[in-house]
């Protein structure tokens, strides 16, 4: 059973639809006690980092998320919030993964980075099993996570940034798997398999 974190910044409908298409069981909740009953957590997100953190804090979801040992998949802003801090609203984020989110330099190219792009896998991980650098994922974001030792795959736009990250049970994807056609479904299925096996 997947628990989807419900908060102001979530793109819940798209994630729910993607899980429906895969026949996965899930519930949505903003209550840490209820989320404790899930086998794996999806942490969606669109919008502003500082506003999203305020929203998580108001429900103690930040405290719960940081300590959980369940597999967590952060999507887009959900992935970004796993890092330590963000230039967006100059805010402190969850701090599960080291690093600070930076804004794309709009003098170099259009910002947000919006559309279909590819990632270059750097490490093997069951989350990205079967997905190659020839396939495409849908991205839309104005801030990016610089690559570091926890980066599983990088995407190139203005600079090389983290497209997929994993540290222990925490995983994140900068793109929107729920909007990335077959490739995205494949990645979500990988996550479901990983939850099932853990």
């Amino acid at each position, binding site marked *: 059973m997947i628990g989807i974190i419900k908060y102001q910044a979530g793109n819940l409908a798209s994630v729910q639809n993607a899980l*429906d298409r895969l026949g996965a069981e899930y519930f949505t909740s903003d209550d840490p006690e209820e989320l404790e009953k899930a086998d794996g957590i999806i942490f969606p997100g669109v919008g502003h980092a500082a506003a999203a953190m305020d929203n998580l804090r108001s429900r103690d979801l930040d405290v719960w998320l940081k300590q959980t040992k369940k597999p967590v998949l952060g999507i887009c802003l959900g992935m970004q919030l796993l890092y330590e801090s963000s230039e967006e609203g100059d805010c402190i984020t969850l701090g599960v993964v080291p690093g600070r989110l930076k804004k794309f330099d709009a003098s170099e190219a259009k910002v947000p980075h*919006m559309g*279909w792009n590819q990632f270059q896998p750097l490490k093997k991980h069951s989350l990205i099993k079967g997905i190659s650098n020839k396939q495409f994922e849908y991205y*839309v974001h104005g801030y990016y996570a610089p690559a570091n030792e926890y980066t599983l795959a990088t995407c190139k736009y203005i600079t090389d940034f983290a497209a997929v990250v994993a540290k222990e049970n925490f995983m994140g994807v900068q793109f929107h798997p729920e909007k990335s056609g*077959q490739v995205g479904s494949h990645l979500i299925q990988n996550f479901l398999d990983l939850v099932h096996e853990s």
Partner: protein
Amino acid sequence: MLTKRIIPCLDIKDGRTVKGVNFEGLRDAGDPVELAQRYTSEGADELVFLDITATKEKRRTLVALVRDIAAHINIPFTVGGGIKTVAEIEEILKAGADKVSLNSAIVRDPGLITRSADAFGSQAIVAAVDAKRAGDHWEVFVKGGSQPTGLNAVEWIEKTEQLGAGEILLTSMDRDGTKSGFDLDLLRTVDEKVTIPVIASGGAGTIQHCCDAVSLGKADAVLAASIFHFREIEISELKQKMADEGIPVRLMNH
């Protein structure tokens, strides 16, 4: 590499897709969800649904339709047409749309861009601008292109970016429905002024037109309706030709 997007546009009336030539002789073109699925499988990168339903009561069917589309397609889509308030935007986004496109409403109430971008993020807010050549500049028209506003289109577009729009859907009224190619001057001029993505619309008639919009007009995406509806151009063929010209596109054969 970030690829250039091909975006079919579907006109929706009372929950059905309609086709027309130069806005005349609208006829039913079937179930929007089926057409959306077809385009998705053929390689469309995104979809735009423009609701041309006139009455408020019938707009209820739009939200139900958005929910239905979101359940069946797994690529991003934008919904536009007559959206006026933050509450309406929220309803459409919650039903599963990724973005809304705003046109007449933001000319009347530019603050709507900021309020909705603050609430849902700039990535969800597309400023749709219908521009018509007026001497040495372009003028913004609203109400489906029927009403001039006196606004300079390029200045207005810059303002929408400053107010928080995440993308521009730029339609050349001079070219719309003519199939004579995109207004490359307009596209280039706007590209120099904004740092957000620009979708070129109005004038697509051939594959070369679409290539030109990207390579000469510097557009980030190309939107078209009739060439896809009437199967004059297959999306897969268009994308292959664009790739042959060295334009980065997402091909489906991987």
